[in-house]
Each structure stands twice: as structure tokens, then as C-alpha cells.
């Protein structure tokens, strides 16, 4: 580690400048930055949509939407945007691109030009999704209102207009982008580790990316197949999902969730890796049970492929099938528990510093536990009968994703912001952002458990009056988190204006991974001489 060549900018001139630097970029750091900027934009759009929904749901009756079609368009777009254009670009495209080569001691990704096309497919994909909002979906109304799950036949005969076609093509591009990225990461991680960095010495963030990209590689083609069949059912007279032609709507659900369940791990596993790095850094103590942590992620990824039909307990599956999916799903709690307890054990005996990234990481550990245990409830088909398609499910998956995945994204943002930009963010602003978000999102989502238990269905723009109380509370929470998001953007602008230099390693002795040995920001090309790992 001590033989790292510091590139002193002698090569800073031999790359394009201005807009060409980004449009033509083959540099993993520039591409990572573009992914992060794109994710900020996606998060902004998705967040505005969610506040729109909470405004509507604040009181019973229809206030802002003149019919519930438009509300369903909002839920659909919110889901798709947050998944494909916020969390995935931030975690894999953004932090993955930036940090994987730095952490394994590689000069760049294995396929720099493919990295470029991976990114530039996303704006095209996003554009198609935006177009879908303005063309006919349901008869006489614009936009896809079939939910992010786009179940047939609502997405076929239920949406005769071309909006669903645009959404399908958008998902195809996003999927192609992810698959190309996955190939790139797998090749990079397998072949470009610095001398001496064996698989079992890789930082856990790199492990988490490796698991994630394998999930992408295996799951995305299934989505592509399913939505292609949807496309041909819609346009070319095939009947894969149409009973009158011998097809079955449930086939789509099986294909969709075979992709969809691994997808939720795609969204959270990189966060596991980030939290491991951050907890170890701010506890000034190596990760507890490193191998257990790495293989717990592998196990979660593997089991994640055989639990899909727990999203489908009410579709009419046989007793034996439901019983199998109950057991398989509950098994996932075991490696997840290993991770939670290992994070606690990493902190146990540590010397904890509560910098902003650490606050997000600790917040994540607790809130992810809450979302995890409600997942155990939902895993049981018997009780899921009452909770399927209610707000309990909405609360559950927002605890693991909105409070889980998004908390890790912010943790990673504050952790690596000094490295990526070279500037230190303001601790008070970061902490204010954390507390506003922490309080806000809990007020949004905790009461949704009560709504779900008492029977409020998901995806409805208006609800029976008895649900008014907790919906009001939930909406107020979303405004608080909205203020938190404004504080975040202010904090970013503030850090860039204040220009306080961060130095190579602002976190001290706990930050032991290779990226902290480089200057902040790292030179355009790093590791002109490969680091040697002892």
C-alpha cells in the first residue's frame, strides 16, 4: 500500500474538455459523477411525485387529481423512477463506478467505452418514460397507470394507448444499460485487482457490488423477456398473458417477480457494502466477521432468486407452493441477521465518531431492522392474506428501501463526497439533513403499518373516511422529509461554494481502503504504478 504512485496531474491535459469530457467520457470517475448527478435528478422528480401523492392523500376525497387515473400514473412513475433512475444509478453507476476501481487498485473499469454507453442509455431511457406520461394509456387518459409491476392484462387490454409501449422500451434501455454495467463490473473485479488483493481481501463494498451485478446479470434478462412478451401481446397478436388465446396472466407475474425479487436486493446490497465501510471507518475498527459478511451477501443474493412468489400469495397458488415460499422467504432472515449483528459487533469495542455518514449508517441499521422484521411477518402467507396489497406492504418496503437504501445512499454520499469533490461538506448541515429526514420518513411510514393492518389498500387516490387520521400524519411527515431534501441540496451547494479542502483522508485511521491513499479529488488517472497489497 505504501508504493502508490501519486499522479501529479501530468496527464491532466490529454483528455477532452468542456462538454466533450462528459459526452465522450471513458473515465470511471467522470461517468460516476454523471450517474450521481442523474440520480439526483431522478430522486428530485421521484420525490416531487411522492409529495404530490401525499398531498392528495392528506384528506379524504379527491383534491388535486381530477380522477384517480392520474394518481395511479404518479404511483407508477414514482416507483419506476426511484428504482431505475435514482437508487440503481446512485449505488451502482455512481458509487460503484467511482469507488470499485479505486478500492481494488485499478486504473479504470475494464471496458471504459462500454461504461460510457451504459450511462448514456439512461437519459434516453428516462426520456422514453417521460414521453409515456404524455401519450394515451388507459382509454382517453395519458400515462401508464398500471403500477411499476405493469401486471397483464391491465397493462395490455387495460391500457390500449401507446404509453405502456413507451414504458416497456424505457425499461428495455434501462435493463440493457444495467446489463452492460454488470458485465463491466464483473470483468473489472475479477481481473483488475491490484497485485496481492485476493478475493478475500477485497473491501466489502466491492463484494457488495460483485453480488449486485451478478443479480443484475441474471435477473434483468428475465424482465426483458417478460416485457418483450408484453410488447408482442400488445402489438403483434400473441397471447402469452391472454386467457382467450391460451395464455395466463399469472405467467407474467411469475416472470416479473423472478426479476422483481432479486431487483429489491439489487437496490439494497450495495448499501450493505457502504454501511460496512462506514461503520468500520467511524468505529476505527476492522469489520467484524468479514468472511461471514461477504458470504451473507452471496447467500442473500442466491436465496433471493428462489423466493419470488411470496409477492403472489393471493393469486391462487396451491398449499404446497405457498408453504415452500414461506420457508424459503424466512430463510433470508438468517443471513440478514448475520449482517445486522456483525455491524453491531464491529461497533462493539470501537471508538465511535458520530460524523454525518455514521449517523446515516446507524439510522440505516435500526430502520432496516424494522423493515426486516415486518418482512418476516409478510413472509407468512397466512397473515399476508390480510396484509397483501395494503399499506402494511407499502410501509414495509419503504422501511427497507426508502429508509434503508436511501439512507445508505446518503451515508455513502457524505462519506465519499470529500473524496470525490475534494471539498468538505458542512457537518451541521449534514446532521440537520439527517435528523429532518429521520424524523420525517418515520412519520411518513410508521403510521402506514396501522393503515395497512386496518385494511387500507395500496394504490388508491381516495380512501374510506376512517383512514383519514393516519393519512394526515403520514402526509405531514412527507413535508418534513421534503424540507430535509431541500437542506440536502443546500448543503451540496454550500460545500461547493465554501471550497474547504478535505485532504486525502479526512476520516483518520479508521479509513483503511485504497481510495483514501489518493489525493482528493483523485487525479484523472490514478495508480500509474499499481499499489501492492500486503
Amino acid at each position, binding site marked *: 500500500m505504501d508504493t502508490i504512485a501519486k499522479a501529479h496531474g501530468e496527464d491532466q491535459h490529454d483528455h477532452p474538455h468542456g462538454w466533450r469530457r462528459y459526452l465522450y467520457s471513458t473515465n470511471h470517475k467522470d461517468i460516476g459523477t454523471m450517474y450521481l448527478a442523474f440520480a439526483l435528478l431522478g430522486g428530485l422528480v421521484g420525490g416531487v411525485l411522492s409529495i404530490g401523492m401525499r398531498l392528495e392523500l392528506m384528506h379524504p376525497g379527491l383534491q388535486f387529481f381530477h380522477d384517480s387515473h392520474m394518481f395511479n400514473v404518479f404511483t407508477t412513475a414514482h416507483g419506476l423512477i426511484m428504482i431505475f433512475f435514482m437508487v440503481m444509478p446512485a449505488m451502482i453507476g455512481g458509487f460503484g463506478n467511482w469507488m470499485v476501481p479505486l478500492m481494488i487498485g485499478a486504473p479504470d473499469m475494464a471496458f471504459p467505452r462500454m461504461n460510457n454507453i451504459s450511462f448514456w442509455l439512461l437519459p434516453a431511457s428516462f426520456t422514453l418514460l417521460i414521453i409515456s406520461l404524455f401519450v394515451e394509456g388507459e382509454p382517453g387518459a395519458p400515462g401508464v397507470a398500471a403500477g411499476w409491476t405493469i401486471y397483464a392484462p391491465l397493462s395490455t387490454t387495460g391500457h390500449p394507448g401507446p404509453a405502456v409501449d413507451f414504458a416497456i422500451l424505457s425499461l428495455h434501455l434501462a435493463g440493457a444499460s444495467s446489463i452492460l454495467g454488470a458485465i463491466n463490473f464483473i470483468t473489472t473485479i475479477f481481473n483488475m485487482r491490484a497485485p496481492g488483493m485476493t478475493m478475500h481481501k477485497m473491501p466489502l463494498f466491492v463484494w457488495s457490488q460483485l453480488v449486485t451485478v451478478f443479480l443484475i446479470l441474471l435477473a434483468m434478462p428475465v424482465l426483458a423477456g417478460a416485457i418483450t412478451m408484453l410488447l408482442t401481446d400488445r402489438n403483434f397478436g400473441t397471447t402469452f398473458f391472454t386467457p382467450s388465446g391460451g395464455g395466463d396472466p399469472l405467467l407474467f407475474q411469475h416472470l416479473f417477480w423472478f426479476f422483481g425479487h432479486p431487483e429489491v436486493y439489487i437496490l439494497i446490497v450495495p448499501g450493505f457494502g457502504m454501511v460496512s465501510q462506514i461503520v468500520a471507518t467511524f468505529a476505527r475498527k476492522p469489520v467484524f466477521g468479514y468472511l461471514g459478511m461477504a458470504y451473507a451477501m452471496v447467500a442473500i443474493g442466491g436465496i433471493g432468486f428462489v423466493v419470488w412468489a411470496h409477492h403472489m400469495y*393471493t393469486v391462487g397458488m396451491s398449499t404446497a407452493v405457498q408453504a415452500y415460499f414461506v420457508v424459503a422467504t424466512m430463510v433470508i432472515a*438468517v443471513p440478514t441477521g448475520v449482517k445486522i449483528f456483525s455491524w*453491531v459487533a464491529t461497533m462493539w469495542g470501537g471508538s465511535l465518531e458520530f460524523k454525518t455518514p455514521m449517523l446515516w449508517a446507524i439510522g440505516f441499521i435500526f430502520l432496516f431492522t424494522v423493515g426486516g422484521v415486518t418482512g418476516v411477518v409478510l413472509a407468512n402467507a397466512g397473515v399476508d392474506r390480510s396484509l397483501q*396489497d395494503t399499506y402494511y406492504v407499502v410501509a414495509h418496503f419503504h422501511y427497507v428501501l426508502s429508509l434503508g437504501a436511501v439512507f445508505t445512499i446518503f451515508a455513502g454520499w457524505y462519506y465519499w463526497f470529500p473524496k470525490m469533490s475534494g471539498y468538505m461538506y458542512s457537518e451541521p448541515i449534514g446532521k440537520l439533513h439527517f435528523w429532518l429526514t429521520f424524523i420525517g420518513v418515520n412519520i411518513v411510514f410508521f403510521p402506514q403499518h396501522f393503515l395497512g393492518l386496518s385494511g387500507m*389498500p395500496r394504490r388508491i*387516490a381516495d380512501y374510506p373516511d376512517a383512514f383519514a387520521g393516519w393519512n394526515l400524519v403520514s402526509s405531514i411527515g412527507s413535508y418534513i422529509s421534503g424540507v430535509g431534501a431541500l437542506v440536502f441540496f443546500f448543503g451540496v451547494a454550500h460545500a461547493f461554494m465554501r471550497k474547504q479542502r478535505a485532504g486525502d483522508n479526512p476520516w483518520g485511521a479508521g479509513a483503511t481502503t485504497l481510495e483514501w491513499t489518493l489525493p482528493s479529488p483523485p487525479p484523472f488517472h490514478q495508480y500509474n504504478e499499481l499499489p501492492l497489497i500486503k
Partner: protein
Amino acid sequence: MSLLNRMTLLAMMIIAMLGAGEPALAGLGQPSPWQLGLQESASPVMTDIIWFHDFLLYIITAIAGFVLALLIVVMVRFNARANPIPWRTTHNTLIEIAWTIIPIMILMFIAVPSFKLLFLQLNVPAADLTVKATGKQWYWSYSYPDNGEFEFDSLMLKDGERKEGQPRLLAVDNEMVVPVNKIVHVITTGSDVIHSFAVPSFGIKIDAVPGRINETWFTATKEGIYYGQCSELCGKDHAFMPIAVRVVSEQAFSAWIEDAKKKYARNEGLPSTAVASAQRLPQ
């Protein structure tokens, strides 16, 4: 100590809210304002679901509380001021085995009642009568195959159509009617897109899928009206196709059947299924 106090306070608040919230407008068969838990049971299956959910709630609260307690201990005992020199421990085989084995044991403990409940729900007993519920955009049609050749539509009552006391978005014009304490076999299908037939108080939810017949069952133990809502996104008016089940005495049910046979008879103009498909055609 302060943690204990805070947790006691929280528990008291929750108990107070439960006490204050539940009886207010305590509608059997529908949600109440500020309700925290599952709807009151009106069938043996729902009674078991409530028991099992409460059982799980104790376990998951204990787990989440345990993790929270660990985090608080860690933050208090091992912050930089309290513990300036970090330990170097990175392994402890015993504890790693423990936190793998103990969760497995907890899950097995959960699985036993879980399977019992699952088998109770899915093994449909010999039924006293069958009701077929067909989900349509955006209303339900009911027929009683054991009781004659009739089918009727059940549409949500709009503002101005409701009588005093009928809940908004839940009340319908023609309820599904069943006798009390009888095993009712429900079969569902969808005529256009997927819908889902759900009545929370009975603990049932079963998708109505085009091209498929699904089944479930319930025994309503108390007379009254029980409400549910379509529980699978089915398009524009998904929020406005409620399910209302009126549970009546056996005599009242027989009388209703006789009445319904006349009222909804198929020879009265077009059969209602044909009406329904005629309504769909222009799309």
C-alpha cells in the same frame, strides 16, 4: 434507566391510543378512525390470523427492541470519548454461530403456527353454499350457483345515494348476502383485468384473475354488514369498487334468495352477464 423510562412512556402512549382509538365509531366489519391493528374478527380464520399476527408482533417487537438496545449501548459505551482506544477483535466463532442458530430456532418457532394457519385457510371444507364473485371494471357481480340462475351487480353508492350511516366508498347498492354460521365457499374470477376480493373481518383475500377460477371460504359468526375493497390495482376506478357482505339469519337468507331469484331473474331482459359484456364492448 432513562431508556427504560422512555420505553414505559411509549408503551403507555400506545395503550392510551389503543384505548382511545378502538371503540370510537367501532364498526364491526369496517375500519375505525385511528385504528392501530387488524379489524375485529367475524370468522374463525380471522380469529386465528389475529392471534398469529399478535404472536408475531411480540417476536418482532422484541427483536427490533433488542437491536435498538444494542445500538444504544454501543453508542453510549463505545463512543470516542468513552473508549478512545478501539479494540482489535474481529472474530468470535461462538457468537457468530449463536447469531446464526438462534434466528433459525426463532423462525422454526414461527413456522409451526404459520403452517397451521395456512392449512386452515387453504383446505376448503365442505361448503354449505357457494357464491361466485366476478370482478369487473369497476364493480363486482355475484351469483349463487347452488341457489338458482341469477346474477346481480354490486356498485358503489356515490355521494347523495347513501343513506345515513352508510360509509363513504364502502357502501354498495346490492350487497352480497350470506347466512350466519354457514361455511361459504367463494369462487372468484375476473372478466377484464385482475381484481382481488377481500373482506378484512373474514380474513380472506383472493385474486379474481381472468381465465382462472380461484376459491376461498369463510364462516361469518355474527350478523351485520362487512366491508372490503378491491385489493389489486385494476385501473382508473380501482378505489371505487368496494365489497359489502350482509350476513343474515338462515331464515332471512332463504327469504332473500326467493326475492333475489325474482328480482335478478335472467329472463328479465338481457342476462346480466351479457349486460356487463355489452358495457365493455365500446372500449
